[in-house]
């Protein structure tokens, strides 16, 4: 079946440094990919999703590029902010949504 892999459980970095959270997927078909962000005591919210026409989605300074050749959809931001500290999930959708295990991003002053 389909799967999504997020290799990092915790990423800790200093404010102002670049962020990259890894996401790879396995699917028989070409799925749509999503990134969600979950702040403490809140529900997961959609951060961005892949496009079919190779455009790079961006939101709140975050962007992700779908690379079908490497089955990846890594999340990036050029400069981390303290408010980016949260749990981030990568997810894929063909006929059923599959979530990765999540990566906790901790941004320190």
């Amino acid at each position, binding site marked *: 079946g389909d799967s999504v892999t997020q290799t990092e459980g915790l990423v800790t970095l200093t404010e102002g440094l670049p962020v990259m959270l890894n996401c790879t997927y396995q699917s028989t078909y070409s*799925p*749509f990919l*999503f990134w*969600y962000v979950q702040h403490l005591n*809140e*529900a*997961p*919210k*959609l951060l961005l*999703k*892949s496009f*079919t026409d190779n455009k790079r989605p961006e939101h709140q300074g975050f962007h992700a590029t779908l690379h079908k050749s490497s089955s990846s959809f890594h999340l990036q931001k050029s400069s981390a902010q303290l408010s980016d500290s949260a*749990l981030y*999930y990568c*997810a894929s*959708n*063909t*006929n*059923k*949504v599959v*979530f*990765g*295990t*999540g990566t*906790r991003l901790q941004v320190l002053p």
Partner: protein
Amino acid sequence: GGIITQTPKFLIGQEGQKLTLKCQQNFNHDTMYWYRQDSGKGLRLIYYSITENDLQKGDLSEGYDASREKKSSFSLTVTSAQKNEMAVFLCASSSRQDNNQAPLFGEGTRLSVL
């Protein structure tokens, strides 16, 4: 706009008790999901349903029952609450026809078992 409503928001139960959580959505979505989230941990799929009266087990279905009585609602039952159990149960829904629509989440039900 649409909304996913989970009731109750907080649920306190006794060990061994049967507890039911409810989820309603007005997006007319086909697929609905129940996830469990333990403190600081990721989402674990309990059950999902692709249409009315359909049920599919997730990785964590043991100890739970689910019911999709109609398209807009999806219930989850904890068959026997475990002592000191604490978790958040999240309901989500998505369109089956349109895979580029992201699943949307309710605000969750927080369970504590005494």
